[in-house]
């Protein structure tokens, strides 16, 4: 009798294990900065929570996540994703920059619209900061779930400013002056020029921007008064006057020995190293750099303490007195592959990953900014708190499928001006011609 019972029990367990399916969901995420690994681990945690709920619901399946996190670089990651999309073997969930990728991938039919799920799970409507939906909406449909956002500050080295003779108070007031439009790009140039002249920094180390192409150039084009998108016609815009102002400023900066003529050498290592060695006076970067510096570059120098002692941040100044400063946010989003057989489950995982505690973990750990309304109330982190104020000045990239072409042409202009190949006037004409060629009637030149 006992033997029979045992047998029945075993059979039941066996039967249950047969009945319970395991559904594998694949997810690809990318930093490329190491600290952003929470983009992957948060998904893993979300799947754990989902499985706990499935157990309560007595569902006949569990979810297994096969996730990867890419730390090489964006080009490499996007190449992989594109090959995977085209070969019909893409992961169910893909994380990438909302702009311009949602525009590009939705146009190509690679990613699925998510409106149905956004309406089904209340957490999306209740928690996600409303303006972020604009960043993931393309032609009236939602194609992504906001994962994080960030700001791109103008950083300055406080110690070097002190050496230049600035008082503590002047240094602390700098962000306010920039916000009020009292400290412009021309003022920055003058200060940096003085620092080079007095030997406080080496020639070419007065102001640094990123060493390769990226969305930051849109931010600076805007800081110099440029408009990139025409809401009415849905076309991209190139304003010659704004571009000329920016190009001329770059030319002046190179001529004055403030900016290196070979700034666009693509060398991020050199960029981080010199900044964290305290050799650069002003530089434009991203909030996530703060986490990279803390965890990687300044590990032996005191990490965040070194940063608070030596580095300050503000939005990117305006080009004219009284103008509004800007910064740029390029939210990351989780998207679902249109060919996925498990869209429902993938969407449910995204509902679980949209949780304030996970959002907070990512924000603090990686130097990004939260995307959920109730996250700030549970975060106790000085950098996140202070840098969040920059969001008052933030702008987004337009979701236009051809934005990369605009960026490429603009970047060529920047590169030609800095290396001395073209004058600012010539560069503006070359960029306008190149954009017209590449974008045809998707562009308005003003």
């Amino acid at each position, binding site marked *: 009798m006992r033997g029979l019972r045992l047998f029945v029990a075993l059979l039941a367990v066996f039967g249950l294990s047969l009945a319970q399916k395991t559904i594998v969901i*694949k997810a*690809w*995420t990318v930093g*490329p*900065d*190491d600290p952003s*690994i929470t983009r*992957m681990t948060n998904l893993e945690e979300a799947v754990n929570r989902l499985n706990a709920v499935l157990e309560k619901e007595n569902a006949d399946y569990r979810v297994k996540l*096969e*996730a*990867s*996190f*890419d*730390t*090489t*670089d964006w080009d490499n990651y996007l190449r*992989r*994703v594109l*090959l*995977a999309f*085209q*070969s*019909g*073997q893409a*992961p169910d969930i893909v994380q990438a920059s909302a702009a311009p990728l949602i525009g590009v991938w939705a146009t190509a039919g690679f990613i699925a619209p998510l409106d149905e799920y956004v309406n089904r799970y209340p957490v999306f409507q209740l928690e996600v900061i409303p303006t972020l939906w604009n960043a993931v909406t393309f032609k009236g449909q939602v194609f992504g779930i906001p994962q994080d956002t960030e700001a791109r500050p103008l950083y300055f080295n406080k110690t070097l400013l002190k050496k230049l003779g600035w008082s503590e108070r002047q240094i602390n007031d700098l962000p306010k002056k920039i916000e009020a439009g009292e400290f412009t790009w021309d003022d920055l140039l003058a200060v940096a020029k003085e620092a080079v002249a007095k030997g406080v920094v080496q020639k070419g180390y007065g102001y640094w921007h990123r060493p390769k192409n990226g969305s930051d150039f849109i931010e600076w084009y805007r800081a110099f008064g440029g408009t990139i998108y025409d809401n009415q016609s849905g076309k991209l815009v190139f304003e010659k006057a704004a571009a000329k102002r920016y190009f001329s400023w770059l030319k002046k900066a190179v001529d004055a020995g403030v900016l290196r003529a070979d700034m666009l050498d693509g060398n*991020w*290592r050199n*960029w*981080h190293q010199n900044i964290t060695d305290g050799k650069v006076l002003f530089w434009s970067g991203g909030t996530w750099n703060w986490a*990279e510096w803390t965890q*990687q*570059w300044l590990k032996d120098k005191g990490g965040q303490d070194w940063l608070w002692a030596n580095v300050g941040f503000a939005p990117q100044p305006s080009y004219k007195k009284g103008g509004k400063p800007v910064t740029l946010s390029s939210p990351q989003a989780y998207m679902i592959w249109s060919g996925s057989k498990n869209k429902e489950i993938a969407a449910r995982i995204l509902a679980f990953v949209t949780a304030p505690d996970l959002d907070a973990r990512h924000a603090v750990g990686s130097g990004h900014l939260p995307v959920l309304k109730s996250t700030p109330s549970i975060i106790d982190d000085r950098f996140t708190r202070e840098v969040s104020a920059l969001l008052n000045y933030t702008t987004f990239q337009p979701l236009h499928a051809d934005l990369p072409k605009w960026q490429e042409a603009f970047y060529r202009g920047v590169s030609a001006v800095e290396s001395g190949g073209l004058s600012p006037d010539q560069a503006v004409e070359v960029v306008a011609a190149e954009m017209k060629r590449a974008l045809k009637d998707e562009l308005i030149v003003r």
Partner: protein
Amino acid sequence: MPIRPPSWRLILIVLGLITLPIGVGTLWLLLTALFNQVHGLLPVGNINFGNWRFLWEGSINGRPPIWVALFNSILFAATVAFIEVLVASMAAYAISRMNFPGRRLYLGMILVLHAFPAVSLLIAIYYILRVLGLFDTLFGVILVKASLEIPLGIWLMKGFFDNLSWEMEMAALVDGASRWTVFRKVALPLVRPGILALGTFALLSAWGEFILPYTLIVSGKSWTLALYLQSFLRESFVDYGMMAAVGLFYALPVFVFFLLGQKYLLNIYSGGVKG
């Protein structure tokens, strides 16, 4: 007293100078993998086994465990070598011993095939694998790698078979052995040095292969060691200590293999029956 070529000291010095960069590079790899920091070739700080933590920590920052990559690499290299030796030796025997129409043209075409570098074929290969449903699989890359290497293998093995004397095979045939038996029992054992050389060559070449898996494998589960190593090459922050350790780990089997197999490798340049 071994026989030495004239002015052997000079030759030794020249060879030494040529080998120096490789030696220094390997030394740097060793030091960087073992110490906290290395300035030039001078270790600073203590011995640091933390650089090797990829061996005992399952996953380093989201990468698949190195054992998965190691297994894939071994599977990849061994299967490629096996297919290459098998196909090349049979094809070479047929070309060397049998007279069939278009033989010369065929040989010429094989040589042309070898003239294409793999990179120039990548896009076409991608489409073919996609159609076959082999994209993003290790098996697909194995087929591609093997087929790109086979032309060279055939030419190499043909040289070995050409050097065999025909009499022994003739004798076996007269005794009633089939063509297949002659190939297996008479010819193949005689070209053993050739097979070992080709096998070693194929194994090393597949072990170091990067561009094919890099392009044709997109998900982490099929990573080979080359891809694992590449993932440490970053845009900004590079953990050189760990990268050197992984590099050394990746190179170790090659060193061992080279020491064990160098005499077969040299055979590639001689070939045939001795004496």
